[in-house]
């Protein structure tokens, strides 16, 4: 057996963990051993270790907890992995402007446009009727038939207006609340 048997306490000579104490946990091959203790648990070349006289009774391939318990008995410190939890970035909350009033106005505008269009249509129809009814009698029947739906449309449009007005009256109160 080489001097680097399982449980041998060593000092790490090279690298970031140089000067810290560790324990051989596993013999990988004749050159490399697995170490743990007051160092990062890793496979190292035995050239990077300096063996000490002390030994610890631990199993082959002992876990970090076992090594920790053994080191606590000896009063040695143990390197604990500090796995950082990625802190959540504060998400920027976009300031949303309350466009409720504007939307209403848009709706109103649309409604108004519709009404205006309907009125224009009616006007044109009426004008066409007036123009067509005088010279020719048969076409007037068609115009009469077309008149009725126009009237209905008028009524509907008036109702819509009322509704829109009601809505516009009601919504500002909500926003105020």
């Amino acid at each position, binding site marked *: 057996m080489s001097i680097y048997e399982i449980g041998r306490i060593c*000092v790490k*000579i*090279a*690298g*970031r963990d*140089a*000067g810290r104490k560790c324990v051989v946990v596993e013999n990988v091959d004749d050159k490399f051993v697995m170490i743990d203790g007051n160092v990062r648990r890793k496979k190292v070349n035995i050239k990077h270790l*300096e063996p*000490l*006289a002390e030994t610890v009774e631990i199993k082959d391939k002992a876990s970090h907890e076992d090594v920790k318990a053994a080191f606590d008995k000896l009063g040695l410190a143990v390197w604990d992995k500090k796995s950082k939890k990625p802190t959540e970035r504060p998400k920027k909350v976009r300031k949303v402007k309350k466009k409720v009033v504007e939307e209403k106005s848009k709706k109103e505008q649309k409604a108004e446009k519709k009404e205006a269009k309907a009125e224009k249509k009616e006007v044109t129809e009426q004008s066409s009727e007036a123009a067509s009814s005088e010279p020719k009698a048969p076409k007037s029947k068609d115009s009469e038939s077309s008149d009725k739906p126009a009237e209905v449309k008028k009524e509907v449009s008036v109702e819509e207006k009322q509704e829109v007005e009601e809505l516009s009256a009601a919504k500002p109160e909500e926003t105020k609340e």
Partner: protein
Amino acid sequence: MPRGMHKSRTLRKVFVKTPGGKTTLHYRKRKPSKAICASCKKQLAGVPRERPYKMMTMAKTAKRPERPYGGVLCSPCTRKLIQQKAHQVEEKK
């Protein structure tokens, strides 16, 4: 002709190519000497050779090896020292 202050070799010469195609002579301060091991006087690896103002802007990890005595002793000397210290502690026990 160079200026009187530029006749000595305190400043190093740097040839700079201008946008017009000419090469002009600039004078700059010399870099500090290379870092050496405190025990064996060998040149240290991993220690940059820059003027202090540039070293100040560098990260701490970029200025020296990240091990005990990094930037002071070379790695073989560090190993020897740590070995000696480990055995001294054992002898005391």
